[in-house]
Structure formats: C-alpha cells, structure tokens
C-alpha cells in the first residue's frame, strides 16, 4: 500500500497530474468562452422566446403568464395549422427538388468530364447568392408582364405564377430549391471522393450495372454526408423568411405564408411579440423533430 502510495505520489505521477491539470485548464479556457458566446447568442434568445410564448406581451414588455394559451389560440383560431401545412409543403418541396438534383449533379461532376472544375464552380453559384437577391431574381423571372419570359407567358395565356394562389408556393419552392441544391451537391461530391476506387472496381467485377453500383455501393457509402446536407437544408427551409418576404410577402391569399414569414410579420409589422415567439418556438420544435428523425436514420444505417 505504502509502495503504491509512494508510486502515485512520486515525481512522475505529480508531473502527469500537473500535465492533466494544465490540459484541463487549457480545455476549459477554450471551451467556456466559446460556450458562453454560444449561450449568449443562441440560448438566451431561445430562452427569451420560450418564456415570451408563455406570457402576454405589451410590445417588447413581458405581460402576465398565460401558460399554453398562446399555442392553443395559434392553432385554434390564429391560422397555425395553415402556416404549419404551408411550411411543411415548402420544406418537403424544397427537399424533393434540391436533394435529387444535388445528388444527380454531384454524380455527374464526379465523372472525368471536360471543364469539370468550371461546371462545379458554375453549379455551386446559387449557394453564394443571397436569399434576397435570389428572391428578386426569381420574381423578375416569373414576371409575366415585364420579365424575360413575358412574351412566352403571354403566348400561353399565363400570368405571373406568384400571383396565383394555386401556383405561388410551387414558384417559391422552385426558387428555394435553386438556392438549396448546391449544398447537397457539394456535400455529395465531397463524399464521393471518399468512396474507395477498389470497392467500385470490385462491384464492376461482380457484373453490377451502373444503377446497381449506385444503388448498392455508392449511395450507402455516402449516406451520412447526404443526410447531413438533408438536415441542414431542412433547418434552413423551416427558418426561411427572406425569400418568401421578397417574392410574395406571404401572399397571395396566404398561399406562401410559411411559419418563418409569420414570425417576421407578427414581430416587426404587427408588434405581437407573444404570437411571434409562439410561432418561433413551434419552428424550433419542428427543427428539433426533423433533426432527431434524421439522426435516428443516420444511426440506424449499417456499418
């Protein structure tokens, strides 16, 4: 026992302890400021929003506690179900277009084609364009009277799709997908670089055709990266405000009234901070649910 204690208390172990302490201090010195910063810019507003959603609001002042009444009102008479369904359609539509397009283009760009770098740059371009510019660009594109396709539109008797409640959401989804697909493409392209060449060769020797190689070899190997892109695109689409604000303002007839847009309008146009925070909390919940679902899928994948 004494020998052990002597060994533990020896100069070597003291040095090791000092080193561990110093490492722990270094870790803490890097972690806690970062944590404090994240907490300040993320958790505090989140906490504020949750607290406000459970209270009445007098402009920015916190009113009386109302429990879940704001949520009940939102979904009973405040149009919450409509905003939610428009948001789900918007997100689903964006994913349905952006994900296959992004993966497809990545598969094409992974091949040894001429001007591949130039194509990659051009196809990644929508990602660097701001949402506001994307919105105005597509709005102009759709304009059936002054836009570049005005003549074509008038020949077919078409008006601006953004002015028709039956087509407006599709119009915004198309613009959103245009901006979202490069992220999926870049993630997929990066993942494709990691697929071992010998695995592809082995599949080819096993006489798998191109589709079978994609289906059974490539896609399972890049699934994690695609899922991460999917999570990011989902979160981004749920939080989207600028695109809708620029293109339709939520109209016509509420056809593009996504949850994010409502948060903006209720907070900064109508000064109903309680309603805005309630919707923001709903969006947060949806984001958590979507992320959890994707992570579950990710964890469930075969090793």
């Amino acid at each position, binding site marked *: 026992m004494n020998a052990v204690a002597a060994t533990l208390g020896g100069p070597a172990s003291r040095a090791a302890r000092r080193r561990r302490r110093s490492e722990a201090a270094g870790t803490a010195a890097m972690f806690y400021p970062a944590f404090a910063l994240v907490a300040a810019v993320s958790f505090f507003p989140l906490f504020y929003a949750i607290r406000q959603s459970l209270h009445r609001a*007098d*402009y*920015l*002042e916190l009113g009386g506690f109302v429990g879940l009444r704001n949520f009940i009102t939102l979904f009973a*008479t*405040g149009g919450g179900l409509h905003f939610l369904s428009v948001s789900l359609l918007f997100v689903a539509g964006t994913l349905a277009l952006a994900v296959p397009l992004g993966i497809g283009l990545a598969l094409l760009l992974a091949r040894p084609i001429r001007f591949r770098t130039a194509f990659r740059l051009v196809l990644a371009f929508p990602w660097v364009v701001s949402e506001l510019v994307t919105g105005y660009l597509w709005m102009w594109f759709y*304009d*059936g*009277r*002054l836009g570049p396709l005005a003549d074509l539109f*008038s020949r077919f008797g078409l*008006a*601006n799709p*953004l*002015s*028709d*409640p039956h087509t407006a959401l599709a119009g915004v989804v198309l613009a959103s997908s245009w901006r979202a697909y490069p992220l999926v493409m870049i993630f997929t392209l990066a993942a494709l670089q990691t697929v071992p060449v010998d695995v592809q060769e082995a599949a080819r020797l096993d006489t798998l055709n191109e589709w079978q190689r994609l289906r059974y070899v490539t896609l399972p190997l890049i699934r994690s990266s695609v899922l991460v892109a999917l999570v990011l695109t989902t979160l981004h689409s749920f939080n989207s405000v600028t695109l809708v*604000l620029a293109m*339709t*303002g*939520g*109209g*016509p*007839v*509420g056809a593009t009234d996504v949850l994010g847009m409502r948060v903006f*309008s209720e*907070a*900064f*146009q*109508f*000064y*109903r901070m309680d309603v805005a925070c309630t919707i923001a909390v709903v969006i947060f919940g949806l984001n958590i649910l979507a992320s959890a679902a994707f992570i579950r899928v990710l964890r469930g994948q075969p090793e």
Partner: protein
Amino acid sequence: MITRRSVAFGGGAGAFAMAARPAIAEARAIEVWSLESPGDGNVVARAIAHVVKGFEAVHPGVELKITSMPWQQLSPTLLRASRARRVPDVAMFYSPDLPVQIDARTVMPLTGFMTDWPEDKRADILRLRQAQDAAGVIYGLPWQVRTSGLFYRADLLEKVGRQPPRTLAEWSDAAAAAQGGDVVGMALGFNPGAASVAAGWFLTTQLGLGAGVLKADGSPDFASPQAERIVQWVFEQVHGRNPPTLPLDVALQDGEKEHDLFSARRLVFLPSSSDRHPRLLAQSGLPFEAIGMTRYPTDDAAVPAPALVQSWNLTIPIGAKSPDLAWEFIDHWTSTAEQVEGCRIAGFVPARRSALQDPFFDAPQARIIRFATEYAADHPMHFDFPVNTSALYDTWVRMFGRVLNQELDARGGLQWAEADYAQRRRG
C-alpha cells in the same frame, strides 16, 4: 515650487476636465435615425444632405451622426432600443408607425417645445392625427408630406377622349377605353408584402362613400353597404370585364411592381402618393404633361374621397441625451426655408403652409405638389387611425385576395375581415 497640494489640485482638475470632456462633446453631437443616409444618391437623400449641411452651418461645433436603416425597421428598432435605453436623439417615423410609438411611450411630447414658437409658426405647420394622442398632444412633426391620389396617363386618356375620372364608373370606363395591347387599365396591389397603397385607397374610398370603417371603440365596422359596393366594384374589374381592366395577377402583386408597370408605360391608372411623381417621370421617360394626378373617385362626381395624407415625422425618443439640441434640429428641418428646399429637391409636399408662398410653387414642375396640397386642404380625412394600422391594412388586402380568388363573395369577405381584425387589433 511643486508641492504635494499643487500636484493633487492639478490632478483633480485634470481628472475633472477628462470627466467633463466627453459630456461636453456628447452635448454637441446628436444622433439621428433616418430612412436614408445623406450620402445616398436619390432625391430623398439629397434633401436630407441639404438639411444636415444647413444645420451644421448654423450650429458650428455640433456634429450630426446620421444612422440610416430600412424604413420598415425604424419603428421596431426604436422599440428595442428604448427597452435597452440606447436611443438616438432624433428618430424619424412614417406616420402609420407613430401611433405604435406613442402607445408604447417611446417618444416624448413636442407640445412643450412648440410653445416657444410664435402663434403663427405653430398654426402654420401641418398636424397629422397619427402624430397626436387622444388628448391632442403632439409627438412628431412632419419633415415631408405626401397625399395619395390617382396617377393617370394623360396622353392615353386624351387619345380616347376621356377626362380624369371623378366616379368609380368613370374610372372603370376610362380604364377600359385606354387599355389595350400590353397596356393594363388599372393597378391595385392587394399583396400583404406591400399593403399600404391598396388598403389606403380602400380606406379613403369607404370614407368618401360615407362608411364608418371603425366604431368609436376601435372595433371593426367593415360590413357596410359602401364597403361591399367597393369590393364588388374591384371584383368586377377583375372578373366582370373582358379583357379585365384589372387583371388578377396585377391585382395581387405588390405595390412596387405596380410602379414598375407604370414606369414601363404599361399602365393607365396607378393609385400612389404624390412624392412618387419625380421618380415616375424619371423612370418612365414620359414628358411632364403625360402624367397627371387626380383625386380618388367615389360614386358622386362632386364629392371625392378624402385625401389620405401621410408624412415622415421627426420625434425625440424618451431618454435622448440632448433633447434640446434635438429640438433645434427639428426646428431647423421644419422651418419654411428648409421645407421649400425639400420640395424643390425631392418633390415633397411642404409641411408648412407658408412655404407655398415661394415662387417655386407657381412653376409648372410644382403642378403635382400644388394638386396634392389643395386636395389635402379641400378634402381632409377625418379618421382615427388605430394603433396598429398595419394589421388593419393586412386584413383588408388578405380579404381582397380571398374575394378576387372567389373563395368568398364581397359580403362574406367583409365579414371574414371583421372577425380577423377583431382578433388582431390592439386596445
């Protein structure tokens, strides 16, 4: 000889001077929140730059710090700043946003400052209802005014032998006659993204037809026969004519797109505000005589809709560091001389009656300003704007969207709007 006492005295004096220096410097600088930066190239920015230069010339040593932000952000930003007690000395607001600031108690009354003015100077300036509380206390003074009305293409009307319309029937008839090809008869953008022009037109036309709109307690009174008549009239312009005088896509697009249509010479009638005239002229390239402006029609040729007057106002937020200096700035900007210059540079309607004595207003290029001034003076609007006018306007444009897409008829739409607004209104 340097003694300990002299060192202590010198140090104390130095410390006092250092402490006092920022206070003095702060007192000679005022921060102004503006919708434009003086460095921007447009006419409004040029008008603001002129005011800043003039103020600094007569107040040497006073520095004006202009912080510009998108105009829609001015009001929510002051609410936040007020809570954080980091307000500017002067903040400007568009008149529909003022009731919110008054209700939230973020701006201070100006009535006390105005008592220093001579009686004629007090009586000379325009006082908007939206800039006052229920007791008539003034919280904001206008630095530019605009009157809403109906822009029209005078050349196109002349070609088809029509006069500027005085009734709704004349309006739809003139629009039908003058439109053709890719030229649309009229534009009214019932879009929640930019609701104020279309909803403002709906408000004034209702009042012109004698509707109440809101009850004394502020609750909605929308389902009047007059309102139904207007909604039905709009519906007929969209669905009751072939070709429509107001195509559905134009009826539902936002106000800026309507202006683009007019600027592209593809529109006969455009409801808008008088301050847009210089821009419409410049962007369309039309000759001066080709763009006219008339009063909003009703059903009675002799009784136009009342004039919807809006303004950009200067306020002093509660907690401002230098309220007296801020007032001097407001006094300067609302002076007759500066008002004339603003009109000359940017086509504003002056906020002071005395400005109209300037020979500039006799010139042909001031025709629209004269029209706007006379319309506002002859047919003032008597309407107590609710605290949250944005919600009222938003409800109306959504209602029009539903009616024009044939989800609801005119009466059903108005009843829906009543229920919707009753739930959203404040107070």
